[in-house]
């Protein structure tokens, strides 16, 4: 196995969170007597990532993804367990460690709001002590890869979300980090911009050999970029492997779609598989893997049969099934 870049053992993080009921009365009472609860954001997470891997980090809202990334980046001190990134203990925030990583959070910015992004790039050049010639080369390459030439000299507040994210990525990569933590880098972007950012992340990973750990609510991001996915829920590891392995484990049925001149009634299709979608001219069925060889010829035999496809269940559906199964298991155990 190639060199491990991220190694977490039994990593946990607890937060004390204040809460109160709605209303002025509750707010005044909270001034004198505050109610708090302890939230276990991450519970005993163990995980290893090798150099150059692209890993998708998935989970529902509040699963502990961002908290984990922040512990990996040294922003949060773990409550228990240990983590090493590139041989460093992140929360000690050694300079060489900080030079070797980057954390990009889609909803936060490091760029100065009132100034053009180039001014923040220049500040980062000084802070990261990047040699002038290397800085110029990297900036030109990143600007070219992201097609950002026309936007880096505009004040950041005048940029669209997608344009701003391009500049955030440039600012985050100018020092040439070898480990990249990306938290929702395509959030709120249109489809074309998402594709551009995905292409850029893949190119950076392949050309620089950088390790990428990515969280995203857009399953297309993860499916297109990450050969390996790590799924957490309520702070616990639920799955670690390839998308194909997850799909086989959670939703092993193959999804077959076909168009034809006249689709038989749904009830008549039960023998072939479970009907997912039906219209008079197109149908989608979930079929057991061992039955695919028999079902496909049967569908192709329909009059004017065309556009037949055989796929795994969509990742979003697989994830929903995974989380609902985990909840059911817990309820049964509890």
């Amino acid at each position, binding site marked *: 196995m190639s060199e491990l870049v991220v190694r977490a053992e039994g990593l946990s993080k607890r937060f004390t969170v204040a809460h109160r009921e709605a209303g002025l009365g509750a707010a005044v009472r909270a001034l004198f007597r505050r109610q708090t609860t302890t939230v276990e954001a991450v519970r005993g997470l163990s995980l290893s990532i090798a150099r150059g891997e692209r890993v998708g980090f998935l989970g529902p809202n509040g699963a502990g993804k961002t908290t984990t990334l922040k512990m990996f980046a040294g922003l949060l001190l773990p409550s228990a367990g240990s983590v090493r990134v590139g041989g460093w203990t992140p929360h000690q925030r050694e300079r060489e460690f900080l*030079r070797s990583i980057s954390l990009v959070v889609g*909803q936060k*910015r490091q760029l100065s709001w*009132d100034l053009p992004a180039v001014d923040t790039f220049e500040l980062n050049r000084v802070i990261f002590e990047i040699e002038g010639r290397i800085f110029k080369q990297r900036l030109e390459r990143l600007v070219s890869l992201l097609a950002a030439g026309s936007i880096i000299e505009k004040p950041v507040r005048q940029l669209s979300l997608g344009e701003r994210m391009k500049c955030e990525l440039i600012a985050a990569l100018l020092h040439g980090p070898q480990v990249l933590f990306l938290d929702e880098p395509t959030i709120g972007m249109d489809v074309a911009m998402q594709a551009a950012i995905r292409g850029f992340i893949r190119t950076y990973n392949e050309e620089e050999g950088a390790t990428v750990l990515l969280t995203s609510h857009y399953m297309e991001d993860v499916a297109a970029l990450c050969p390996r996915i790590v799924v957490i829920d309520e702070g616990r590891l639920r799955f670690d492997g390839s998308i194909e392995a997850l799909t086989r484990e959670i939703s092993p049925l193959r999804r077959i779609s076909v168009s034809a001149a006249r689709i038989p009634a749904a009830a008549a299709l039960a023998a072939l598989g479970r009907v997912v979608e039906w219209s008079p001219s197109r149908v989608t069925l979930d079929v057991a893997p061992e039955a695919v060889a028999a079902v496909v010829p049967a569908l192709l035999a329909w009059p004017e049969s065309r556009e037949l496809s055989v796929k795994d269940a969509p990742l979003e559906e697989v994830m929903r099934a995974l989380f609902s199964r985990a909840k059911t298991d817990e309820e049964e155990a509890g």
Partner: protein
Amino acid sequence: MGRSGARAVLRLIAAQARMSALAALQYRLGFWTEGLLGALWSAIGVIPLLVATSYQETVAGWGPWELMAVTGLFMVFSGIFGALLQPALIESMEHIRRGSLDALLLRPVDALALCLTAAFSPWRLTEAAAGAALLVVALVKVGAAPDLWMIGAALVVIAAGIVGLYALGILALCASFLAMQLQNLTYLFDALLDFARWPSSVFRGPLKALFTFVVPFAVMTTMPAEALLGRLAAVDLGIAVVVAAGLLVIARRCWSASLRRYASAGG
């Protein structure tokens, strides 16, 4: 901190100052308004000069022009606070509240240095310049001719005063890790700083101890004036250095503890 470390901090300060200057120049109207306010601030600081020259009474043993020397030093510190420390504290407290401190903590330099240079209001330095001018005028009027030792002692206590001022700022910043929205602390501090207009001999008992050891206004204004007027006792010089160093150690420890508690925001 080694020589290369000191050079890195100086480069950082220069780069952050450049960003603040660029931000100030980005909006023309804001730039000129700030300039006008800076000039007004300086003029307000000099008003006591006009008042004092019309009365010849002494305050706690200090003559009118000696008081002007203290006022000049007060303006120097008030200008430094308003130009350098207060904007950086307000900006950093906002970073802590919103969780955007993350971006600062990910940079390979001392996070405290980044926080303390996070923003500048360059125009407020006009007040410090006016204060320095007032100090020189006051010393000339008094007829003081400080020798090298006196000037050196004054510079030491001024440095100790600046260290004390920054240490208090760091403690305020640490408090904002525990309780958000503490920007008002900086305005309270600004108001408190007004006590530094007066020589410390004006205060008695607990107030005198407070303004010497806890909020060391005496170190910032009274002691430098005493040094330049040839009245500073060696023991006071020692007290100034010890108080500043003590506050700095406490502030640095609080900062390290606060970073360990930092919970970021938004996930």
